């Protein structure tokens, strides 16, 4: 992937009276797929509106695809495709004409817009249903139609706000696959705001985590995951005894039934695990380096901040809890 910045902000601040929605945000988003994470009230929507040039930043500056967010909002919006979280389709129109109209609103002439609408709907999997009224569509089909509206002019950057929200497993899988194909085969960039960690992890290679308008973490997911390296073992028989033995040996064990994750504690961690297994008679049927999920990463970041949350859902769904959390200094936050 080319190491090219598509979004760059410097001390970007947006205040609504005394409330600071974005607080000196310094972001550098590379070409490719980036996940935008953060609890409710973290400033995601304000950030999106600011980079779309729809609201003026109070302080600081930024560029999107090389255009100034303060003065070139029109140029930015012509080069990006925005897929809103909420319904943004007229239920009385059929999909093909809705998508064509979205192209016309960008300045495409009607004939070209119609041709592209066919291609876009085919791409998102609505090809056979394109003459149906949107009012009769399922949630997944509506999401796909919104994506087709965003893709009609082949934008360099697609901003997808909760693209897989409310979808069933099949539709969700298809949406994820479509976004992935757009990035990998289409060589486009995606900025994906979502609270579904699995989806973000599958589509994106980078994340930006906002909290209380501040940057909590940003970077490649693989780099951030290296914060928390573990070895995962699958045990058959004597799991409790093994866990106790390892803890007695000074290893840090997280256990979910027969699956245990042991924190790296030097080069001999593997040997110590196997020694404990031999002593207790437990069978270690599988052992490998555990690749942390984005969910784990999120929890680690929050744990580093000093908060105990069981899942990202706890935090993302609870603005009251979220308000108590601040980013650590080494991750760009205030470190409260």
């Amino acid at each position, binding site marked *: 992937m080319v190491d090219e910045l598509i979004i760059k902000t410097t001390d970007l601040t947006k205040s609504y009276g005394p409330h600071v929605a974005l607080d000196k945000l310094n972001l550098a988003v590379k070409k490719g797929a980036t996940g935008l994470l953060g609890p409710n009230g973290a400033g995601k929507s304000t950030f999106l509106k600011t980079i779309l040039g*729809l609201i003026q930043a109070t302080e600081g500056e930024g560029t999107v695809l090389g255009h100034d967010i303060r003065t070139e909002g029109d140029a930015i919006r*012509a080069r990006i495709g925005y897929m809103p979280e909420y319904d943004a389709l007229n239920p009385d129109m059929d999909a093909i004409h809705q998508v064509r*109209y979205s192209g016309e*609103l960008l300045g495409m002439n009607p004939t070209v817009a119609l041709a592209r609408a066919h291609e876009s709907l085919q791409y998102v999997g609505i090809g056979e249903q394109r003459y149906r009224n949107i009012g009769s569509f399922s949630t997944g089909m509506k999401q796909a139609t919104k994506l087709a509206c965003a893709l009609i002019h082949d934008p360099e950057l697609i901003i997808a706000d909760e693209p897989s929200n409310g979808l069933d497993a099949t539709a969700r899988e298809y949406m994820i696959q*479509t976004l992935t194909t757009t990035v990998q085969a289409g060589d486009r960039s995606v900025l994906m705001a979502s609270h579904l960690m699995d989806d973000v992890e599958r589509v994106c290679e980078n994340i930006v985590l906002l909290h209380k308008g501040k940057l909590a973490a940003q970077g490649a997911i693989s780099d951030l995951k290296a914060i928390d390296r573990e070895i995962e073992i699958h045990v058959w028989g004597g799991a409790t005894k093994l866990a106790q033995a390892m803890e007695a040996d000074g290893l840090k064990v997280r256990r979910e039934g027969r699956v245990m994750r042991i924190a790296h504690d030097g080069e001999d961690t593997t040997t110590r695990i196997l020694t404990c297994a031999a002593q207790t008679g437990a069978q270690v049927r599988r052992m490998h380096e555990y690749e942390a999920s984005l969910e784990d990463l999120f929890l680690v970041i929050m744990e580093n901040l000093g908060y105990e949350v069981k899942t990202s859902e706890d935090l993302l769904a609870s603005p009251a809890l979220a308000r108590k959390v601040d980013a650590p200094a080494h991750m760009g936050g205030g470190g409260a």
Partner: protein
Amino acid sequence: MEAAWGSTEGDEDLTATQVAEPVTTGHVFEQVYKPWKGTLNPRWMRNWAILRHHLLGIFKKGHRPWGMPTRLFILIVFIASLSDAALTLLSGLIGDGSLHQLWGISRDNLYGHVLGFFPRNVLYYPIVAALLVGSVISEDRQHGTSALYFSRPITRFDYVGMKFVSVALIQSFVVLLTLALYYFAEIIALGRGWAWIMDTFPLFLAAFLSGMVLIFTYTSIGLALSSVSKGKFFPGIGLLSIVLGTKVLAILVSTLFDREILYLLSPYDCMAHVGQTIIGTQPTYDQYSWTWSLASLVAMNAIALYTLSARVSSMEVTRE
């Protein structure tokens, strides 16, 4: 039977178990991303798209889906508004002077075509305006389609401006086009020459101007109501209530308190008062100065446009 691997806590006796192989399924559709290398047209083309979307929706599918009752009512009113043109043609065809005296082009008939109260400003024009403005902005709030506009290089001014022009143009078909057809019907049916045209054209222009004021006022009040709502009924009913309800209220005030406020309170009467002055017909509010009605009309439009602009400025792209 032995429990399957992974279903227990890991503390079982060491005995062998079997697990089923996962089954994968495939799908036929091949997803191919097709790039587009075209260039986007400038601002005027985007504005034209909004105008075209609303205007063509009256006539054909694939554009803004106006409801069938709206389209049908516009057609009925369009035909009904041509009644004076039709009777002028008839009077020319049969050579009946009395019919022409009643329906032909005159100062009063031109005024009546645009600003006559019954039936045009009771049954025709306000209802057409109410049906048109009912959902033209409120539907964007209701369905979230404002995001479709504002996530694209469309300014709030362009958005509201084009919606305003669209609604005004559709009303123009009914009010101003029929006025022009009425005027031309007289020229054609009675073979009017240049001298007659030179005499009457200023009257036609005055009626045309009055019609524009009427359309502008109905549109600005209607769109202001549409911008504060998420439904289609409130703006429509609200417009009719303002146009006709203020008249009723003024009559009540006049009856109970013997105080005349009709020429100030009712948008229709303000327009009629100003229109009578522009066209030069016998004023029916002659005890009061028309400038008061004009000032009231300007104030009504200013309030409506302010509300419209404030509400459209607050429309969201992320959520509504």
